[in-house]
């Protein structure tokens, strides 16, 4: 049989020709419709791979060009003439909808690089296709078949996939790189990729930089020349690289200076045209700072070396070679230019110090640190002191091989030390020859020196005092007060003054007066305390005896005074009606003088009581104004020559010792009279506020100078009178008055002008209502 449309000489034409089609659904070729025949004619003559499904059963046809796609040991040749559903069972799900679309809607379908796995080469293979399904119309213009024009693109797809994978890997490696990497595209340097290191360096987030011109995102770079650099690389293709370039970058809300090593590399497209820039960078700020610090330290070291005029040396311990600085030469009395061997230097060492040096070196090999002081003898026979400091460097096997160090001339320091030592020796000698206890303490109050007298007195050694503290020799009853007073002085920096008992070697406690003053530097900081303790035991005993004596004497004096006073008063009363003026006057004088004597004795007693702290107060509530009234009346009787101007105006109730307060008032009034020899008027005023009552006694007498006003309330002070005879008394009246008022919690004072008179006043707290 010869069918025209099947007369081609290809394999598929041959197969179609030789196939017995009569058994198939579409019957023998002679019966095939015109449209099928035309289609097959095109198909079999086409050099493009083509496939045709025909008729309702979709009988398969394909051409020679299609044949390789079916592989070896695959569907070829048996699917020829087979129903599509049977022939493409493995991909029927994929192609059926496409075929249906074409058959039913008479539309072409186009797909590119579509995966349609097929069975070939003995297995199902992933095969990619670019294909079109086109309707083939029959003679009645109905869709009778689907013509498939296709190309297998498996190879292309695989290459493309590999490219994609490669790019993915590249991106991944960029993203994971320990360096900051970014890629900018186009003339505006739009950020295409930036890894986390780059974002960290830039101080930005990925979403803020991606797909945006980098200079828009980082405007702070604009005036740092970065734009010019990028533009230059983009235009010229010249790579740019910089090392430790300081760049100001906004991190958060702060501009930071970062030091960066970075490069800009041009990127080329497939046509060899620059289409981007890759930047690779590294933040080296920390390293730069470390460098700078090292440089600074080196600079500092140089300053120190220069300032201290240190000689510098380096000894190679293996070869005994030495490198030494000019200053070191100078210290040894050589010029900078003269050659100096290690041995020559050692030759200058004072013979007595050779061992010191030797010991220091062997110590240094063990500890790594060299230190010694020694004397050297220069060529002119002069002696100098040097201080050597160094560090030992070791080899890997642990052998020392190098010592680098400094050497300084400490002759002056040594001289000062000598002077200090001499001074200290003198001080100790001086201190030890004193009978007083002398001691010193550090600024914190810790006692650190005691003179010999302390050890002789206490019978303790320095070690014993050091171990258990100096407080051990203080009487247990005095320790608390002692510790507190000392602490207060150390804290405030004020002088320390304290009376306490120290235990002598024989166990006897003796009273000491201790005094310590802080020694301060120019700035006023305490450097040390220097203290003394003086034995006042005998003085104190004498004083106690004196006080006891005064107390006893005044008591013993009172007995005869009582007698004299009593008998005089008896005599006065017996002879009061007699006309014997001589008798009466003499008795009056005796009575008056006994009164003076009584007052002196009383004052002496009061004084000894105040000293012994045993001045007793017998407190009661009374009207101060009434008391003043009574006293003034009495004083007026005794001193008819003076007028006392006083008017009781209101009640001033106080809680006080009536006897003692009247003593004060009498003292004020007597003084006013005594020191106003040429003025007759005394004024007494009383004022009160809501807190206290005040009594003022004003005279118009001789007055008191400013300087004396300060001292007038002190013990045994008396006004400088015209003569001692004019103003008799011990001068303790005001001292006692001041003590009495102070014991009552009141105030006492004076306002006075010499020649114009004085105003003495005292105040007492008002009694609670």
């Amino acid at each position, binding site marked *: 049989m010869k069918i025209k449309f099947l007369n081609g000489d290809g394999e598929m034409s041959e197969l179609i020709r030789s196939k017995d089609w009569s058994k198939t659904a579409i019957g023998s070729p002679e019966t095939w419709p015109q449209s099928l025949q035309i289609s097959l004619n095109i198909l079999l003559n086409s050099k493009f791979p083509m496939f045709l499904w025909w008729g309702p059963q979709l009988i398969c046809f394909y051409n020679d060009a299609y044949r390789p796609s079916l592989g070896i040991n695959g569907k070829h040749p048996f699917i020829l003439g087979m129903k599509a559903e049977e022939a493409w069972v493995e991909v029927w799900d994929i192609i059926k909808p496409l075929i249906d679309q074409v058959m039913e809607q008479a539309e072409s379908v186009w797909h590119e690089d579509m995966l349609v796995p097929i069975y070939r080469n003995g297995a199902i293979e992933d095969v990619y296709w670019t294909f079109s399904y086109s309707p083939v119309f029959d003679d009645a213009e109905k869709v009778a078949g689907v013509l498939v024009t296709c190309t297998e693109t498996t190879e292309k797809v695989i290459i493309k996939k590999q490219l994609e994978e490669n790019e993915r890997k590249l991106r991944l490696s960029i993203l994971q790189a320990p360096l900051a990497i970014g890629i900018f595209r186009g003339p505006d340097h739009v950020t295409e990729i930036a890894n986390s290191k780059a974002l960290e360096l830039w101080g930005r987030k990925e979403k803020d930089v991606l797909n945006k011109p980098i200079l828009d995102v980082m405007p702070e770079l604009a005036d740092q020349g970065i734009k010019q650099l990028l533009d230059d690389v983009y235009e010229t293709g010249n790579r740019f690289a910089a090392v430790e370039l300081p760049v100001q970058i906004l991190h958060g809300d702060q501009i930071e200076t970062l030091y960066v090593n970075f490069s800009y590399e041009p990127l080329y497209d497939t046509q060899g045209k620059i289409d981007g820039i890759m930047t690779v960078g590294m933040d080296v700020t920390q390293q730069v700072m470390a460098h700078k610090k090292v440089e600074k330290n080196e600079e500092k070291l140089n300053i120190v070396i220069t300032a201290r005029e240190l000689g510098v040396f380096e000894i190679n311990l293996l070869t005994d070679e030495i490198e030494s600085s000019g200053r070191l030469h100078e210290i040894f009395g050589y010029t900078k230019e003269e050659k100096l061997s290690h041995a020559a230097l050692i030759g200058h060492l004072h013979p007595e110090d050779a061992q010191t040096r030797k010991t220091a070196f062997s110590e240094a090999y063990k500890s790594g640190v060299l230190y010694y002081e020694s004397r050297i003898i220069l060529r002119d026979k002069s002696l100098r002191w040097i201080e050597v400091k160094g560090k030992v460097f070791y080899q890997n096997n642990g052998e020392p091989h190098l010592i680098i160090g400094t050497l300084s001339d400490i002759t002056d320091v040594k001289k000062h030390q000598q002077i200090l030592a001499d001074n200290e020796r003198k001080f100790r000698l001086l201190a030890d020859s004193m009978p007083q206890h002398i001691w010193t303490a550090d600024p914190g109050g810790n006692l650190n020196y005691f003179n010999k007298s302390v050890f002789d007195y206490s019978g303790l050694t320095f070690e014993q005092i050091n171990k258990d503290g100096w407080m051990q020799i203080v009487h247990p009853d005095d320790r608390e007060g002692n510790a507190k007073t000392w602490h207060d002085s150390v804290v405030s920096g004020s002088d320390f003054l304290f009376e306490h008992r120290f235990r002598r070697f024989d166990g006897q406690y003796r009273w000491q007066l201790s005094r310590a003053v802080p020694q301060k530097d120019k700035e006023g900081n305490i450097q040390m305390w220097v203290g003394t303790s003086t034995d006042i035991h005998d003085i104190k005993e004498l004083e106690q005896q004196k006080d006891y004596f005064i*107390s006893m004497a005044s*008591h013993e004096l*009172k*007995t005869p*005074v*009582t*007698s004299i*006073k*009593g*008998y005089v*008063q*008896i005599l006065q*009363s017996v002879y009061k009606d007699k006309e014997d003026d001589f008798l009466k006057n003499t008795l009056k004088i005796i009575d008056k003088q*006994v009164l003076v004597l*009584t007052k002196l004795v009383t004052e002496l*007693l009061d004084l*000894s*009581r105040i000293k012994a702290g*045993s001045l*007793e107060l*017998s407190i009661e509530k009374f009207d101060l104004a009434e008391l003043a009234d009574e006293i003034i009346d009495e004083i007026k009787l005794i001193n008819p020559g003076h007028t006392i101007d006083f008017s009781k105006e209101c009640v001033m109730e106080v809680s006080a010792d009536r006897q003692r307060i009247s003593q004060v008032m009498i003292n004020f009034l007597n003084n006013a009279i005594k020191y106003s020899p040429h003025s007759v008027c005394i004024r007494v005023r009383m004022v009160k506020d809501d807190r206290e009552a005040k009594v003022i006694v004003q005279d118009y007498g001789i007055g008191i100078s400013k300087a004396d006003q300060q001292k007038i309330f002190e013990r045994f002070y008396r006004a400088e009178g015209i003569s001692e005879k004019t103003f008799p008394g011990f001068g303790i009246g005001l001292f006692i008055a001041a003590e009495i008022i102070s014991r009552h919690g009141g105030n006492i004072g004076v306002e006075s002008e010499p020649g114009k008179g004085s105003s003495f006043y005292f105040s007492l707290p008002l009694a609670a209502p």
Partner: protein
Amino acid sequence: MENAKNHILVIEDNEDILMMMEMMLRNQQYRVSKKADGNGVELLIKEIQPDIILMDMLLSGVDGTIVCKQIKENPATRHIPIIMVSALTGGRGKSEEAGADFFLAKPFEMEDLLATAAAAFGLAQETGG
């Protein structure tokens, strides 16, 4: 005869002062009994029944403060007002402590002694009457 309540016992170991006080008191028409030490005072009181007692604080024999306390602790004698006299430091306090009703510091004014004695007789009148 004198006022019924006018008997005063004066105890003082300084003879001159004892005599002086006796003179002052007698001059006021008081009946005065004297004793020169602190021994056996209670017996004497029992015997002579004084209205008031004037005594020095420092006595030879038994101390004045002890004598005073004994008198004030004895129900038979505690009503008798006592005037204590002393030249001692702190005498007033000790006197109060011992239970004396009045105190006079040596040296005293005659006037003060007589005023105090009068006050003591007055007290005796009130309490012992």
